[in-house]
């Protein structure tokens, strides 16, 4: 019996010839990540309860100061300090200070730290993002992270795999974000519960690496354990200048067993949003066009990489944010910010009247720099719109791609980007 990519990676980690869905395995971890909310508890459990004095491999751990940093209040300053102290004491090689890293799920791929064929864990639910780079990556808890930091291994239940095949190509204006929102809308927020989502098909060939990361990022919004993609020329090109270690891609066997196969015609997917209050509340853009907005947020590990900011800037060029609306743009990493500065994107944002912030998770999880008040309506390029996610439980959040967000900021209501910009330049599509 053949194996899927996910099964192969877990089998290798466990030192076994093969594994099957449902198996519980003890597997070696190739790379681990924690941040300012999860390193303090994990470090405490590891040292005080497990009795470990050092971590298993300081070269294979990354720590970012991203969730509530730069510190939003005294409590988060303490978390930042504990995170910083632990990282220095343990000699963690990939520690990213405030102003030098950014959001973990952008930072790790852009530094070439999470690679094909690897088994990656992160103490953050969106750690599934890395799977677009042909690895098994999943979110874990703080006790799990403590175990990994101490031993370099952790137990896993081998997930069943769901295969998603995307035929044809996405149409003009329609982005990977629209595709994944559509898929989650079809299968629901628990449609892939504890399972692997394997994305494949012709449509992916035309989707760049950053947009692929947007798709695997949202695997958890369908309840999945991980999202994973095949290795191809696009992956290779992205990794060639970045990869910090040699790597070995994996492929699914032709006779691998899938619990279910879903087929979608990418050409038929419309520009869309997730309406409040759930990421699976998909609606075509036409259904919500004209919805009045108080805030537009372009940010997060989902949709604030350089390609996202380029599209937002193309729409905002020579336009102003509508009166009564505020536009907040938060790059997802320091490198993204540097590149945006080089390309003149920041000037475009500032001229349009947008608030440009430092790289942080910020408003996405209702942390700081853009939290919503009671009754406010926000269009956001983020991943979750549950009640209270971005602030007040009675605030309404719509999720969209960055071009729709930018156009809607200009119009003051949810708007199709073609009403602001005639055509998205082919070079940044």
């Amino acid at each position, binding site marked *: 019996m053949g194996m899927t990519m996910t099964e192969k990676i877990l089998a290798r980690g466990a030192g076994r010839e093969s594994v099957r869905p*449902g*198996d*519980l*395995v*003890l597997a070696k971890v190739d790379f681990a990540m924690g941040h300012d909310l999860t390193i303090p508890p994990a470090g405490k*459990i590891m040292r005080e*309860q*497990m*009795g*470990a004095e050092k971590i298993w491999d300081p070269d294979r751990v990354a720590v970012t100061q991203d969730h509530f940093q730069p510190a939003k209040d005294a409590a988060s300053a303490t978390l930042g300090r504990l995170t910083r102290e632990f990282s220095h004491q343990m000699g963690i090689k990939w520690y990213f200070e405030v102003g030098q890293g950014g959001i973990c799920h952008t930072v790790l791929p852009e530094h070439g730290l999470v690679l094909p064929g690897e088994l990656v864990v992160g103490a953050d639910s969106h750690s599934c993002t890395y799977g677009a780079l042909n690895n098994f990556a999943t979110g*874990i*808890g703080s*006790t*799990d992270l*403590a*175990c990994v930091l*101490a*031993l370099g291994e952790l*137990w896993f*239940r081998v997930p069943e795999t769901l295969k998603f095949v995307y035929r044809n190509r996405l149409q003009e204006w329609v982005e990977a974000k629209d595709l994944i929102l559509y898929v989650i809308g079809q299968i629901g927020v*628990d449609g892939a*519960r*504890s399972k692997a989502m394997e994305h494949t098909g012709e449509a992916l060939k035309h989707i760049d690496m950053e947009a692929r990361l947007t798709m695997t990022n949202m695997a958890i919004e369908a*309840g999945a*354990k991980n999202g994973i993609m095949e290795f191809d020329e696009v992956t290779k090109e992205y990794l060639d200048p970045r990869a910090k270690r040699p790597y070995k891609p994996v492929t699914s066997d032709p006779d691998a067993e899938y619990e279910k196969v879903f087929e979608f015609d990418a050409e038929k997917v419309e520009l869309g949003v997730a309406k409040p209050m759930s990421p699976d509340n998909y609606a075509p853009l036409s259904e919500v066009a004209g919805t009045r907005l108080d805030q537009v947020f372009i940010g997060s590990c989902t949709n604030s990489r350089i390609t996202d900011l380029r599209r937002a800037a193309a729409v905002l060029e020579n336009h102003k944010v509508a009166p009564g609306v505020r536009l907040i743009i938060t790059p997802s990493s320091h490198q993204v910010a540097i590149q945006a500065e080089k390309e003149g994107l920041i000037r475009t944002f500032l001229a349009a009247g947008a608030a440009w912030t430092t790289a942080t998770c910020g408003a996405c999880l209702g942390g700081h720099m853009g939290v919503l008040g009671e009754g406010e309506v926000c269009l956001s390029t983020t991943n979750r719109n549950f009640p209270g996610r971005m602030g007040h439980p009675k605030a309404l959040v719509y999720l969209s791609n960055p071009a729709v967000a930018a156009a809607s900021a200009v119009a003051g209501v949810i708007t199709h980007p073609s009403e602001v910009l005639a055509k998205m330049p082919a070079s940044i599509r």
Partner: protein
Amino acid sequence: MTLPKVVRGRAWKFGDNIDTDQIIKHAMEGVPGRDTWAGGVEQGDILVGGSNFGCGSSREIAPVAIRGAGISLVVADSFARIFFRNAINMGYPILQSPQAAEAVEEGDELEVDLDEGIIRNFTKGDEYRCEAFPQFMNELLRMGGLVPWVRKRLEERRRAAASSG
């Protein structure tokens, strides 16, 4: 806490999508003076749930609450992922068995053999399969969870390093 190889008890049957808030509330009602579900549980009883057992927010206390009520282990059609991880990390045995979840009725006398991965129903004279735990997992459950298990493994490594160097 040690975990016996074979667990025997009476079945308490629950439906699908029991969430962590409900779990906490149910078990808390077994606190002395409150006499609802948890009050009727006898030490060692077995909870049989439907699909997606333990869904909802990640409340580490949910498995603790069930154990506190006297339930020795939980069998379900399927578990919500966070509940599954939390329970095992705390050394609390939970077993996935769609067969048992469908067939078992409230009050059935059950016996679960953790090493063999077999659930015997004495009331009905049935037998259901569930995944047997691999050795490391049995060890982890017997030791009382992930923290003591890591502590022991670290000690073994230190000893191995000392004897080889």
